[in-house]
């Protein structure tokens, strides 16, 4: 089922063209990653879909209606990047108000359930200012979960938060992705790779690509070898000596991206491991395929 449709969508702030000519659809299903550098237009796109701002050009619909339509409120929720709850009221009273405004049947129960999911049930009587940054993010995710909307947009949900909180949020998205479709924007591509199945790539306000996170590489296979810090030129030479190698790239973190002929040399990875063992080369990790970061930003 189609949840979001953008047709020739554009947004201009004064002289700045923040977004232009965006055509995309988001279907119900597994989480979708929204990636791109700073200023790419990720937040603008989320704000347009969330109905916080209006397009300067084109249209955006959520479940076939404009985002401002009252019927969309029950089906969509957003974690805006910099939003905060009112510091004067308790967390519980504000979430209960939100649930009542949404027309949820049992608002108190719904709030307790949402807070439990983000592990903040013991903070129901606290004021938002009493929470840490990570807890505040989790709290805002709890408000997204009220009334179980069909689509939830999370704008940089793990930005600036510590690893335990980030993991908790990732786990939550994975657990709830069966009942809601998440669209997650983040600069942490490793994180997105773990939880998302589709990636929307924006740059300079334009849609660069919209594809599955699983790479279709045709006849070529890719391996990513994370060598230990002692890797040097000899490691490179050893990898290059494996039959079937097509291309080899290295980054500054001793990470090798190996491209090989998967049709003629389907056992390439076994040959590679054998060579590494024979030459007593230590490595941390060997993964099948390229990371999202390598795919998006490598020259090859």
């Amino acid at each position, binding site marked *: 089922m189609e949840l979001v449709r953008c047709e020739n969508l554009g947004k201009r702030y004064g002289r700045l063209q923040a977004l232009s000519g965006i055509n995309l659809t988001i279907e119900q299903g597994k989480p979708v990653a929204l990636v791109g550098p700073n200023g790419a237009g990720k937040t603008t796109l989320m704000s347009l879909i*969330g109905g916080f701002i209006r397009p300067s050009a084109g249209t955006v619909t959520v479940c076939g209606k404009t985002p401002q339509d009252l019927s969309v409120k029950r089906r969509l929720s957003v974690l805006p990047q910099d939003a905060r709850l009112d510091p004067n009221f308790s967390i519980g009273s504000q979430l209960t108000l939100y649930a009542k405004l949404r027309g949820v049947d049992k608002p108190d129960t719904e709030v307790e359930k949402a807070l439990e999911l983000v592990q903040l049930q013991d903070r129901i009587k606290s004021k938002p200012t009493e929470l840490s940054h990570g807890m505040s993010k989790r709290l805002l995710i709890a408000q997204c979960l009220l009334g179980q909307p069909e689509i939830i947009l999370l704008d940089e949900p793990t930005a600036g938060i510590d690893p335990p909180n980030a993991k908790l949020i990732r786990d939550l998205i994975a657990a709830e992705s069966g009942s809601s479709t998440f669209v997650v924007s983040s600069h942490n591509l490793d994180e997105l790779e773990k939880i998302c199945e589709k990636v929307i790539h924006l740059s300079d306000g334009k849609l660069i690509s919209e594809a599955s996170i699983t790479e279709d590489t045709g006849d070529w296979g890719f391996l990513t070898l994370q060598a230990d810090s002692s890797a040097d030129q000899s490691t490179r030479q050893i990898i290059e000596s494996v039959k079937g190698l097509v291309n080899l790239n290295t980054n500054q973190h001793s990470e090798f991206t190996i491209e090989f002929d998967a049709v003629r040399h389907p056992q390439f990875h076994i040959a590679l491991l054998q060579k590494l063992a024979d030459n007593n080369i230590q490595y941390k990790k060997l993964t099948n395929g390229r990371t999202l970061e390598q795919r998006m930003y490598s020259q090859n």
Partner: protein
Amino acid sequence: MTTLRNITLIAATELTRVLITRRGLLSLLAFALIWLLIVATLIKQAPALVQNGATVGSLLGSETILSIAQWRVAEFGIHWIIALYVFPLCCVLYAADQTASDKTRGTLKLLTLHTSRSSLFLGRFFGMLAVQSVVIAFTLLCTLVVAVSRDASLLQDSLFNGFFIWINLIIVLAPYTALMAIISLFAKSGMQAISYASILWIILLFSISWVSNRYPEAAALKTIFPGSQIGSLVTHRDWSSLGTITVPAIQTLLFLAIGLFTMRRIDL
């Protein structure tokens, strides 16, 4: 139906903000202390002030003092005059932050995820009006206590006068509240909204005065200002005052319509 329910929910939350939160109670306490000062220095002295009409007359104008003297409960006569001129100013200060801080903080975004922008705007407006109704009621109660403690037989008249003033002041304050709701949408804080309101007021006042000096028929433009009927309200002390309701009612509806239009289109 949903819209009406949500307007009520938001308005009730605004009332709670003043009556329950520490910040709201502090501002209420500050106002109460100022008002008690007014009660002690002016309202309590009302009978003497009315008798010494010459002094008050020189301050307020003979017609005004004559109208105060006609109130059966002099305390309410003084209350009426003070409230007509002081409360609109308080209203501008009080109603300035209907949405400004929430917009800056991003709370408005969160609220619009759960309800329509229209119900949010109207809910805040009616909530602010409800808050002011409570504040007005408090001031009237103070005056009633002063009047009845002077002469217990004035209870019935005091209740009548109090109710008359309560209704009329809400009508007077409605357009101020609606105008501040619009200004608040463009401001980043309550203070900024007050600054915008002051600038707008002065520019409009000078512009309209200049235009009406050159073209006398344009003097009617002054009716766009909230409170333009206050001058004629001063002498009223019965329900004939409701004859002046048209101007504030039209102003309120006009400002609300502009506010709703803006609220629906503004970027959050």
